[in-house]
């Protein structure tokens, strides 16, 4: 009986059956597809000048992060940026960002410092994000440091802060209000990813 069982293990047909079962039942682990996404990311930009401060926040940023390849992308609808002053929101869309012509700000790039092995382990990781940022139809390369905190539930909380210059993206600021808008605007990104 026992001998028969042992010889069964060496039976190639049985191995084939087990392997087929494994392939069918655990596709994602076998393939190594580690994709994370969010539809509620937050991006805030802040321009500080002695004349006035301008701050807009978008709570509907969408983003996908692929831990296998390191590719990371996010998109933010310009009209979803909220301001304290209604007129500021209107001017932001009509006069500066021309959001009817350029509805989204998009980033496409790579995140290094967090591979597919680390993604499964809770902890804090210092990462670097490099890629192309398109705002107002103009694309510029950008590199920024970031932090990813992975909690026990497997949620990736990614955050980063960097500076951009409105004029780099073709945003025209007339002389009359030049002093109202900072040369460099601070952008804060907070994306909480869940497994896709």
């Amino acid at each position, binding site marked *: 009986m026992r001998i028969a069982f042992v010889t069964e293990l060496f039976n190639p047909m049985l191995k084939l059956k087990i392997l087929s079962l494994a392939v069918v039942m655990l596709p994602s682990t076998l393939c190594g597809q580690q994709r994370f996404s969010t539809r509620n990311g937050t991006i805030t930009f802040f321009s500080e000048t002695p004349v006035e401060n301008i701050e807009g926040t978008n709570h509907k940023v969408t983003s996908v992060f692929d831990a296998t390849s390191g590719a990371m992308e996010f*998109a933010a609808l310009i009209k979803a940026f909220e301001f304290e002053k209604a007129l500021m929101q209107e001017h932001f869309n009509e006069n500066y960002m021309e959001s009817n012509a350029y509805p989204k700000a998009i980033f496409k790039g790579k995140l290094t410092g967090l591979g597919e092995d680390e993604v499964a382990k809770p902890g804090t990781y210092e990462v670097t994000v490099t890629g192309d940022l398109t705002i107002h139809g103009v694309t510029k390369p950008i590199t920024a440091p970031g932090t990813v905190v992975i909690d026990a539930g497997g949620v990736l909380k990614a955050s980063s802060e960097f500076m951009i210059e409105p004029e780099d993206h073709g945003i025209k600021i007339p002389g009359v209000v030049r002093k109202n808008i900072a040369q460099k605007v601070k952008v804060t990104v907070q994306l909480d990813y869940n497994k896709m």
Partner: protein
Amino acid sequence: MHRIVLTTLFLCATPLAAQEDLLSQLGEEDTIHGYTTASFKTTRVINGHSLENTAHGVLDFRISHRFGFVNGGINEFFGLDGATVRLGLDYGVTDRLMIGIGRSSFQKTVDGFTKYKILRQCDEGCTMPITLAVLATSSITTLQQKDLPWFDPTRTDYFTHRLTYTFQVILGRKFSERLTLQLNPGVVHRNLVGRNEEANDVIHISGAGRFKLTKRVALNAEYFYVLPDQIDTRFHNSFSLGFDIETGGHVFQLHFTNSTGMFERAFITETEGDWGNGDIRYGFNISRVFTVHKPKRKKQI
């Protein structure tokens, strides 16, 4: 055996195309409920109301001047020597409701109004092709009795003679980034009129529009057509043409018009100037907005 491994690898291989556009895996972002904004740069076209309201929590301080007739020549400094003024304050109670008061030097009139947006044009995330608003204004002449234009010592003068009311429906659409058009049909009710032949209820309709020339400069025009046989023949329909220049928190409206008054009864039913005769006045409105109350912006769905 090898065949199984190869098949597995084939299933796992990430298609090259997907690497290029990860975001498409998520699908489109939820579109936001976006009501059309900035159909006009401010709440007045020139004399008449536009379909725009002052935003919720915003106070708009308005100073308006109308000068004398340009054909007064150099002696009158082309009208600049004689000016009438209106000072006004408008306030956005909610995104749909605005109120305002003002005082004009023309017959020392105090006016007040309320404007409510019933329908708001929406082209993103909802469908509404037009903006529909209703306007109710009233004005009261605060001249001393002896200075009233209708004063007659032999006749009893009632307080209600000083009052007039205007009701308008404002119907408009922002056709494109550059072009907005609107219609204002309405009625001006005057408690007291000069002669029997004149109507107490003056029915009128106005057409107004703006054409945006640059991001901050627009060309506005408005025409108030009063139905025939309602007002004295010496009065004409009000026509105005001007530019809006917007700079940050100010909107400067610079225009030419044949009307002196800046409240409805005056410019709709008592316009003496005739464009055909060259009775044109230069005038301006300045609007300065202050955010006095920052409402919690509703999360747009």
